[in-house]
């Protein structure tokens, strides 16, 4: 039997591993909602203790060593020091998350509206305008758009670059110690360093900043990708320069301790189409993607991980040419994303990290038997010849029945011929 890390490395190099590696919790796009993490801990009979919300925006729960072993996972994550709301995860304290006791950072500061909506504050600063809202009945935060008035001829790309600066020594120390811990676990390591997302629509409103300037509204941003391309190029140029400088500093500190880097989460796909043409992708994004990925390949052993939801088959050739090695979450339910044709067309050049089970229908609403059937089918198709890391299509959402999550894990283990707990 191979060790988990070797299994991931073989997979990423398109060699057949002894079995398909599994990732849950390695990144904020392959995560599990805190309520599901709690349910899984109960299911496996692990010590009852509140789960840490390590990613407050989507309310993702930390998968600790005991649960990772129980679930039979092969990948662990390295995360930035600061969360989406700009505070660090320091000094955990208990928080009553609508009936579920969880652990949050001491700087996770909220207020409750008369409507029952919960507001959260950037950098934990209650005197700043709130940057996130969790509506009553919802299970995660939405960003609050804070768009200063736009005066066309006063727009300055610098204003959109506040978040792109050289990382601090504290961040570097954090990456170093996290990478060491991750490596000591024996797992494969997926790292998120931040700063190279290029227009990820979840980051455009900058929920981590107290007073974001520039273009921060979602529709305004999308329009800018068509009508203000010079402005967007200026932002991306700066972001690219700073991003590579940071990667170089991080690499100098941690070396090849991590195996894959989640570089970009910009979603290009909708259920049936894309957010732009291939031409726009090539003109506006490709040069920066290529610069970052080329740097990574020339200087490190890291593999480049790209996330994009939706229907992106038409973009895969460009992603490959730009140097991405891995695509996630492989939303097979979207147009043109049929597993068989994806694998046969791109399987030798692209690692599919995701696509293991549908999260729009099967996982939340199917029976455990339907989940098993779909998982076995996907492992069969994607697993051939390596190049497949098992993960559901995007994070496991609140409300997903724990029996289905367990049925999913058992099916991968069944395919792998593994008995996890004898």
């Amino acid at each position, binding site marked *: 039997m191979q060790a988990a890390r070797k299994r991931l490395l073989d997979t990423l190099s398109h060699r057949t591993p002894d079995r398909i590696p599994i990732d849950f919790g390695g990144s904020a796009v392959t995560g599990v909602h805190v309520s599901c993490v709690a349910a899984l801990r109960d299911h496996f009979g692990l010590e009852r203790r509140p789960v840490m919300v390590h990613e407050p925006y989507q309310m993702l729960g930390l998968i600790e060593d005991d649960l990772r072993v129980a679930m039979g996972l092969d990948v662990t994550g390295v995360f930035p020091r600061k969360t989406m709301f700009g505070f660090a995860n320091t000094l955990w304290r208990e928080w009553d998350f609508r009936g579920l006791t969880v652990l949050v950072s001491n700087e996770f500061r909220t207020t409750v509206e008369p409507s029952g909506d919960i507001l959260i504050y950037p950098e934990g600063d209650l005197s700043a305008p709130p940057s996130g809202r969790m509506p009553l009945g919802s299970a995660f935060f939405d960003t609050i758009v804070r768009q200063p008035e736009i005066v066309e001829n006063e727009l300055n790309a610098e204003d959109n670059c506040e978040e792109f600066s050289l990382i601090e020594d504290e961040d570097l120390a954090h990456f170093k110690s996290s990478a060491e811990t991750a490596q000591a676990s024996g797992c494969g390591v997926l790292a998120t360093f931040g700063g190279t997302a290029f227009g990820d629509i979840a980051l455009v409103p900058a929920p981590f900043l107290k007073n974001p300037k520039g273009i921060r509204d*979602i529709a305004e941003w999308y329009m800018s990708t*068509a*009508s203000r391309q010079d402005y967007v190029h200026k932002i991306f140029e700066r972001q690219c320069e700073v991003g590579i400088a940071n990667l170089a500093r991080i690499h100098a500190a941690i070396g090849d301790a991590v195996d894959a880097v989640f570089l970009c989460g910009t979603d290009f796909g909708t259920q049936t189409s894309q957010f732009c043409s291939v031409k726009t992708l090539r003109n506006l994004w490709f040069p920066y993607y290529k610069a970052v990925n080329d740097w990574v390949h020339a200087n490190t052993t890291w593999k480049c991980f790209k996330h994009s939801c939706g229907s992106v088959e038409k973009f895969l050739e460009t992603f490959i040419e730009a140097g991405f090695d891995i695509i996630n979450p492989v939303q097979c339910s979207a147009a043109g994303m049929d597993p068989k044709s994806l694998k046969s067309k791109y399987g030798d050049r692209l690692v599919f990290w995701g696509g293991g089970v549908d999260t729009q229908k099967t996982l939340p609403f199917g029976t455990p038997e339907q989940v098993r059937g779909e998982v076995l089918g996907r492992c069969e198709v994607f697993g051939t010849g390596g190049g497949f890391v098992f993960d559901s299509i995007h994070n496991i959402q609140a409300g997903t029945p724990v029996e289905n999550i367990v049925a999913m894990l058992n099916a991968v283990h069944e395919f792998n011929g593994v008995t996890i707990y004898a």
Partner: protein
Amino acid sequence: MPDLQKLYDAVLEGDQKTAVAVTQEALAAGCAPMELITKYMVPAMDEVGRRFECEEYFVPELLLSARAMKGSLVLLRPLLAESGVQPAGRVAIGTVKGDLHDIGKNLVASLLEGGGFEVIDLGADVAPEKFISAVKERGANIVALSALLTVTMPAMRTTIDALKQAGVRDQVKVMVGGAPVTPQFATEIGADGYSDNASAAVGLARSFVRPE
């Protein structure tokens, strides 16, 4: 008399400045507001919808055209109201409770507006009561619901049920859409129509208000 073809082009190309300027000139020259809408803006937005459907246009282009159209409509709407012209129908649209995905909903709203409907945009994360008051107090005769998350799809059913409870279900047609929604689901929850894209949503709304 300004060249009104420029209004059509400006909307199609998403050039708000020109759309507004041509509209102002046209009004100054005595053009009928309704004619500007029906002869130039509606056809332009129809063409925008067509291009979106066949992937010549994408979300950014559609948003730009919608903004150009709105810039012009701001000038025309008060004049229409004065002259007592009725809109094709009055649509209350929103993304249902618990869901913030509003890009698709905004596109549908814009194309409906471009198609001659009056649109009451209730925003995202909209509670059923808000739809009810839009019907009762603002006379909406079409309710359009959008949902992008499987966890919020049930809120579509809840909203339709709430319309029934409030006794206004018969006064309105309900249409639903959004990535995870299927025609079967639409039927199951008792909606009157479904479409998987913004341009077909306009056709659907037109079919609702067409005299039988």
